[in-house]
């Protein structure tokens, strides 16, 4: 809590940004993001688009796994479902503002199906059930040629806003960040409703939650469905962004990537998802830059990039779990507190 802020009504206490300073910062941040295509370079924009897509998917996993405590290893597969739904609809001429929500809903339906064992089994069995879901869905991606294009993949027509084609990163940027802003606000607000609190209650002790009147069946299925909805939308955006997609993209590694993102960022908070998505997107980039810089001494290093990325992801997951289980969001709030209370010690 910032010093010098005194709430006098419940409404002001419950606002998302509860002090004038944080509102001003938020406004400045949104303005900076909106104008980014004007001042940002090509590289920055491309990275920003990828961060935005990862952000949406991370927000989703952070609801399923972070808030509701239901571990999901089929997140990448749900993204794939969203992506292929968009590919199929876009070819039929459906505009993106219809196709993306539909992609989310299809993914959410599948999410509820894959998550249905969660009603009877707990964490460990559930992880294996979602793993099974991942493999079954991936098998469908590879084999259902007429929709997914099989292993060679399929192409997705450009998004089109009233005859105005969204080509290139600059125009996709607004589509991606508009969606991310909407879904981010939705996630933030979900946490303040009784549905969001029910998720946290289910995570902390599901039997107690049931005794307190939470409908476990509904809460668990909803947690899976909402998480999968976010993944489906992210997958759809991914399809529009790349324009071409193969089943290989939605591998188990991608699910592990998102798991790493929510752990590194901070489980169960929107801020954590944002930090995690940004951080995890730049880790492979930094590795790539290091590899480029050292390629004159080690010519074979380019081939080691992918495996080294896996090693770094693993190390990050374990390090954060052991030393900073609440992730970058916790570090951030500590730093903030020091500044707020300065010159007093915390």
């Amino acid at each position: 809590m910032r010093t010098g802020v005194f709430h006098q009504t419940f409404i002001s206490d419950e606002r998302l940004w509860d002090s004038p300073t944080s509102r001003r910062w938020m406004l400045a941040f949104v303005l900076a993001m909106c104008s980014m295509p004007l001042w940002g370079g090509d590289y920055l924009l491309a990275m920003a688009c990828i961060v935005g897509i990862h952000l949406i998917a991370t927000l989703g996993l952070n609801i399923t796994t972070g808030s509701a405590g239901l571990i999901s290893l089929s997140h990448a597969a749900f993204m794939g479902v969203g992506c292929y739904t968009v590919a199929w609809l876009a070819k039929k001429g459906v505009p993106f503002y219809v196709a993306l929500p539909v992609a989310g809903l299809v993914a959410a339906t599948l999410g509820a199906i894959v998550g249905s064992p969660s009603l009877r089994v707990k964490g460990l069995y559930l992880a294996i059930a979602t793993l099974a879901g991942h493999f079954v869905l991936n098998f469908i991606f590879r084999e259902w040629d007429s929709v997914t294009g099989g292993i060679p993949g399929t192409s997705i027509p450009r998004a089109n806003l009233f005859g105005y084609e969204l080509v290139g990163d600059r125009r996709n940027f607004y589509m991606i960040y508009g969606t991310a802003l909407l879904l981010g606000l939705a996630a933030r607000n979900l946490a303040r409703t009784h549905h969001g609190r029910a998720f946290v209650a289910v995570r902390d002790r599901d039997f107690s939650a049931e005794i307190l009147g939470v409908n476990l069946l509904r809460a668990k299925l909803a947690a899976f469905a909402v998480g999968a909805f976010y993944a489906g939308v992210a997958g759809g955006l991914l399809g529009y962004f790349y324009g071409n997609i193969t089943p290989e993209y939605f591998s188990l590694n991608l699910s592990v990537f998102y798991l790493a993102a929510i752990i590194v960022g901070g489980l169960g908070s929107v801020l954590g998802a944002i930090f995690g998505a940004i951080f995890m997107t730049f880790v492979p980039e930094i590795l790539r830059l290091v590899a480029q810089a050292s390629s004159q001494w080690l010519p074979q290093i380019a081939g080691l990039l992918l495996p080294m990325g896996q090693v770094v992801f693993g190390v990050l997951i374990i390090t954060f779990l052991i030393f900073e289980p609440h992730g970058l969001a916790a570090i951030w709030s500590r730093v903030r507190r020091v500044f707020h209370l300065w010159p007093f010690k915390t």
Partner: protein
Amino acid sequence: MIELAEYIVLGLLSGGVLALIALSFVLIYKGTGVVNFAVGEVMMLGAYLYYAGAVSFKLDPWLAFFGSLAAISILSVLIERVVLRPLSGQTAVAALMATIGLASIIHGGAEAMWGGETLTSPGLLPRTPMTIADILIPGAVLGNFAIAALLIAAFLAFFRYSRMGVVLRASASDAVTASTLGINIHRAQRLTWMLAGSVGTVAGVLIASSAGLSPMLASTALGVLAAIVLGGLDSILGAILASLAVGVIEALAAGYLGGKTREVVPYIVVLAVLLVRPYGLFGTRAIERL
């Protein structure tokens, strides 16, 4: 009819090796309460170390085999000490995610060291095919099954009769009570990890010698997770029986539905079993108290 018998026999034989992986997994789950997603990667690393010893350093295969067993045992102890001990007392999901991280590290490391292509690993056993009642059985498969069966029998005897086995069972069934009775839990857990790592290594070497060695080897173990769910996470006997069943199911699916379905059919079975019998066929039903 002969076709069906052939699929069943081959499935049973390959299920024997799957049972070794399942054993490695169940040992750790029973002994330490950790669901080890890195089982496949440890197994793969064991196979690669054997390959490095036998081919790169041109050692005697058996020497390379025991060398890799020793190396994996040391690694398992390190994993237990560095990664999982600091996480003990936290939720099961934290440990689960840590092992996923571990799997990622080992997988990436092995691929960086040895590359992604399939290598031919030297066999430990002679490969003479056999014919039993008109069914041709490849030699490697039969030898693998024999080793797996021997090892599993040895393990069951160890747990049943030896003093150390009793210690491990005691600390697995109730760690707190066991430690009040003077059992060193840390030592028991260390030993559990060593044993699980060694069993995994044997499985890895056996599979690699018959199916080739590549980072894809680790995903074999993911298929075994299916078997373990079928048998119940905490039942050694259930895991063995279910591995055999999964071996047969895989062979039947590959035979009748085509090779591609081989990798998904076990998972479909898992999803179905989880919906009907959530704790597997032989697992203990967890009773939760508030």
